[in-house]
């Protein structure tokens, strides 16, 4: 079944093209990696998929429906730096936020919502930290908490922006294990990832972009040298100009 359908997507910032005619179709039960060099528009693509930024042209559909009707089907784990870490909120209450969309206006989270949030914290191995203030955690622990919040949303799709940046190896392992479990349950996972390391083992499918679509398909098919060269060509020639030896 098609989970994500993107056709002819264009996005620009103040007239500068950021995403140029990108199309792809992903089935449910897939871990899709969005990969490309710096400035390739990976985060922009993810944000436009979430309709956090306006698109210029193109179609974005989830399960055959437009984004506005499917907001409650997608959970988002933003880059860690986007937040005020001194905010007076505990780890557990951060995860409880994940239950808000289901509650709707005027309703307060109840005991069962808090228990569900605690359960999600347990899943990411952070239940001992529930009472801590959110800024008292390490980078990897913070990322696990935000994954827990996304889990609390109980959505069909999960979008993560650079989840493995600046975190410890065991947190990375915990996160990828959980994502694989979700994939096996038929959920669709989209991950923006900046380096090619582990890309083949983490992702089922890869969308290799550099403003335009370079290649899309099964991970091992996309990660061919000619595709990589094409996507990273700008940076390669830049490195050559600096005299960096690539062989």
């Amino acid at each position, binding site marked *: 079944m098609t989970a994500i359908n993107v056709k002819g997507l264009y996005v620009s910032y103040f007239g500068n093209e950021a995403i140029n005619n990108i199309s792809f179709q992903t089935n449910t039960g897939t871990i899709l990696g969005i990969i490309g060099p710096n400035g390739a528009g990976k985060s922009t693509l993810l944000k436009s998929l979430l309709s*956090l930024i306006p698109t210029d042209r193109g179609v974005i559909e989830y399960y055959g429906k437009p984004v506005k009707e499917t907001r409650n089907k997608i959970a*988002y784990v933003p880059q860690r730096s*986007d937040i005020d870490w001194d*905010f*007076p909120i*505990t780890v557990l*209450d951060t995860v409880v936020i994940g239950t*808000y969309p289901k509650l709707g206006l005027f309703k*307060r989270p109840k005991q069962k919502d808090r228990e569900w949030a605690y359960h999600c914290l347990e899943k990411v191995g952070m239940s001992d930290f529930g009472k801590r203030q959110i800024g008292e955690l390490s980078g990897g622990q913070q990322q696990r908490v935000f994954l827990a919040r996304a889990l609390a949303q109980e959505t069909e799709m999960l979008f993560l922006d650079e989840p493995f940046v600046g975190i410890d190896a065991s947190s990375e392992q915990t996160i990828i294990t959980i994502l694989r479990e979700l994939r096996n349950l038929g959920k669709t996972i989209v991950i923006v990832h900046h380096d090619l390391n582990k890309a083949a083992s983490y992702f089922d499918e890869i969308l290799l972009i550099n403003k335009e679509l370079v290649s899309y398909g099964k991970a091992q098919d996309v990660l061919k040298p000619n595709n990589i060269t094409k996507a990273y060509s700008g940076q390669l020639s830049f490195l050559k100009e600096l005299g960096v030896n690539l062989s």
Partner: protein
Amino acid sequence: MNLISFFDAIIQYSFLQKALVTSVMVGIICGVIGCFIILRGISLMGDAISHAVLPGVAVSYMFGINIFYGAVFTGLLTAIGIGYISQNSRIKHDTSIGIMFSAAFALGIILITIMQSSADLYHILFGNVLAVPVAEMWMTFIVGVIVLTTVFLFYKELLVTTFDPTIAATFGLPNKLIHYMLMILLTMTTVASLQTVGIILVVAMLITPAATAYLLTNKLWVMIMLSSGFGVTSSIVGVYYSYTYNLSSGSTIVLVATILFFIAFFFSPKQGILWKSIRARKHRSQLANN
């Protein structure tokens, strides 16, 4: 004893009762709204809106309408103007705030001077809680009810849009609308505080009790409770000093709030300077002994 004569005076004089009731309500409202202002990092915006209310107050006097309408109008107009300038040019937000609020304030001063009517500029700027009329006391009460009800009803939405606006947007929450809703509440709060602390010092009532509470807790709702508690304490003690020593009420209230802040700054169990240095010293001596 001053304190006993103060209590006698409260029982005896209705103007003192009104002063206390009004300033206690202002302490609560400012304490609650202030928490969201400082957590969103828009303290300067609080200062701006409170000044921008002045031309609205003047125009309201001119047309003989309730100052409330004029104040909310110019306050909100300034908030929108500030957002418009910083979003549509390279001018940074704080610069845009500086341009717009000083312009509104300057305009207000001229309008008030031209009118030379019942509106006393000094009292609008610095507050005179001991002369608060019954009508204004009721207006403060109504504003209080509106502010507290709104915060209570939209607590979840205010929490998530303040803490993590990006996630709020993926939930489909209208960040901008909530921002302007908060600006309306802020303007209303400012108007309600005019008699008590005045335009110039209302920002202190908004941010000082909230900042004090911020040093003491890791939970938003506790912070809100503590903040309004500090606001109320400052108001009562401030009115006492204002009455007893015949001082400007705005100044005494704000200074009491500031003293509370410094007590928390030095002695807060988690964030206080004192305990931090004691903990650091203990840790060092432990390391030395091992």
